[in-house]
């Protein structure tokens, strides 16, 4: 059952991601990205990481992609086709991404043997409580410092984005 679900989700994921990069209309691509993120969230749930799945939906879909959509609508006239890649560019892109993918595939096959790893039964590991405790943990394996840094970073980029996007006088 799990496997079946996994393969189905994986297929959907690949398909929707593919649509993101090849749809000529950006708006469609962005919408497809939403789909892709939803499928990712489902995959996380399948891997028993509910919190991450929730965060994925809230941050990515609710925040980022919507934001992107707004920008697309702001900046681009709908159905703009003139920015389609040329055939040469496609070939090059295909070749390079294929080569890179092939390289990683080779590495994956080469180094990760199936028998080395097994599915963990620990249900609690990725749970909300664990994550929360760990994030605010002040001991050496806690994540309090990165957590604070990220909050500062978020603040800075907020201010920075406002400054950059502000209309020049």
């Amino acid at each position, binding site marked *: 059952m799990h*496997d079946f679900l996994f393969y189905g989700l994986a297929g959907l*994921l*690949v398909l929707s*991601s593919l649509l*993101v*990069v090849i749809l000529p209309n*950006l708006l469609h*691509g*962005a919408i497809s*990205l939403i789909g*892709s993120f939803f499928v990712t969230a489902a*995959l996380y749930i*399948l*891997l028993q*990481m509910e*919190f*991450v799945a929730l*965060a*994925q939906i809230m*941050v*990515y879909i609710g*925040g980022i*992609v919507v*934001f*992107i959509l707004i*920008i697309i609508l*702001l*900046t*681009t006239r709908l159905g703009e086709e003139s*920015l389609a*890649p040329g055939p040469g560019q496609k070939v090059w*892109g*295909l070749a*390079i*991404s294929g080569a*890179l993918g092939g390289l*990683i*595939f080779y590495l*994956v096959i080469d180094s990760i043997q*199936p028998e080395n*790893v097994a*599915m*963990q039964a620990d249900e609690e*590991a*990725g749970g909300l409580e*664990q*994550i929360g405790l*760990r994030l605010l943990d002040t001991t050496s*394996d806690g*994540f309090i410092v*990165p957590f604070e840094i*990220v909050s500062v970073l*978020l603040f800075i*980029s*907020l201010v*920075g*984005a406002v*400054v*950059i*996007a502000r209309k020049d006088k």
Partner: protein
Amino acid sequence: MTLQNCLILTLFLFAIGVYGVLTRRHLIGILLSIEIILNAANINFIAFARFTTADPTAGAIFPVFVMAVSACEMAVALAIIISMYRHRKNLDVRELEALHG
């Protein structure tokens, strides 16, 4: 559903993302492709957290950080895009070559 399967899935996603980055001519299109790549990385984190004995919680925390950083990135990138669009009325990366040597 094994680690290897997950990794192969993400490498497909990564390759798709790279392909998008290389072929998209619209700046936002490139951003979208980057999101796919980041997403692939996140899935990898989760997969490793789930399938190895190390520290699954840490594996779960990392995507959260990635999301935060990518949100920052998006905010700044989109601000730049808006400002650029305002100045040049164009977001074709081929036209954006002020850095050429």
